[in-house]
């Protein structure tokens, strides 16, 4: 019943080919077939968002996508954010604002915020809250996450103006 499919996908700019059983989710494939363990699995039913990645630029829950459905796509994960070992401004903002504690939900929030800021570089506080309400964090109470995204947006705005 269960066949194996050869899929090809680009992850953080690197092309991978891998043979996967259809029922392996994109989260499974990223984590265990390709070794990108930065993306985490928190619920497997699309509520917590710990598994958030960008698929062809759009934020999505990798626990709700089968790997075979991601054939011929470009995926971005948390491992692709830092540039040459240096934290990007969003990552910097997270550590500056103590926006993580246990860290398990953090990659999901980073990818979510990355998607938000790409599409809406100058979000209002309400827009940040609305977008960040997509994911669950159990440690921080969210305030520092919202502040970090706010700071990252403001910093990018500054940089843009300079």
């Amino acid at each position, binding site marked *: 019943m269960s066949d194996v499919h050869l899929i090809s996908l680009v992850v953080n700019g690197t092309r991978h080919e891998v043979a996967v059983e259809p029922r392996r989710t994109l989260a499974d494939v990223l984590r265990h077939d390709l070794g990108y363990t930065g993306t985490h699995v928190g619920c497997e039913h699309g509520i917590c968002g710990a598994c958030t990645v960008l698929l062809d630029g759009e934020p999505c829950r990798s626990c709700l996508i089968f790997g075979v459905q991601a054939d011929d796509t470009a995926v971005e994960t948390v491992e692709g954010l830092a540039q040459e070992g240096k934290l990007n401004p969003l990552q910097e903002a997270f550590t500056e604002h103590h926006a993580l504690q246990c860290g398990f939900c953090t990659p999901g929030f980073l990818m979510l915020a990355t998607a938000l800021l790409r599409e809406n570089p100058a979000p209002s506080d309400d827009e940040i809250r609305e*977008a960040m309400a997509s994911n669950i964090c159990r440690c921080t109470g969210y305030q520092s996450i919202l502040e970090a995204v706010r700071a990252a947006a403001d910093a990018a705005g500054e940089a843009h103006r300079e």
Partner: protein
Amino acid sequence: MKPAAFAYHRVERTEDALERLAELGDEAKVVAGGQSLVPMMNFRLVRPPALVDISRIPELRYVMRDGDSLRVGALTRHREVECLSDPDIVSGYEVLPAAARWVGHLPIRTRGTFGGSIAHADPSAEWCMMAVLLDATVVVAGPEGEREIAARDFFLGFFTTTIEPGELVVEVRFPRPRPLAAIQEFARRHGDFAVVAAAVAVDLDGDRIDDARVVVGGVDEVPLRAEAAEEVLDAASAGDDTFAEAARAAAAAVEPSSDVHGSAEYRKELTAVLVRRALADAVARRGGTEDGRGA
């Protein structure tokens, strides 16, 4: 929570989807965005032996204006409806992008599809309610060709529609603009399925209400037309008293169930509150655009 094993087929044309479904038989399921189906598979609540992935059929992804009517291709993402802004397409149908913002969260809306939601037939799902509210037609493709089903006949019960095995929703067609329409929802948390949702649409001739539609979600197995409320509204004068009376009529007419999110009695109360608020919201649009955020 790993799903049971299945065979996977991806198609890129509608004909191929229909052919594959015919070959695979009744138990095969269609997957588009997967936002409703995959959680159920992960919980092993459903175990289709085969999935036919239609998400990359390009001809099914569109939103187009055809005279008065708005035609939404089945593979249109919720997010695409949310972002509709071209007045040539969306004018008079603003309630649809407004409703889109209630659908889950952003990462759900980038993947989930309009047709998928219609076919899934959750009675509190926004598109199911909109279809009934706006007298939409669901266009279904099958081995014998296409057929059109009125939304009011399409939903049979929880997660049950008149789609036959081997058929595919290809389009949802809204017949005419309804600028005075609104949706109000109550959910325990932001982004959750509504405990109760109310969607209304009216025409106004001066102060006089005409052709009212009131649909309540979360109170029955299908999106429920609250005809008792519509009767109160038709030919009545728009205003708080009318809205309140219509709301009471809607609440009296529903017989919801209880669950962990709310008692039956509570759902009746919410019905009245949300219908009233939605009516006020819808009529207020007469002055211009307004944001239909709710409870």
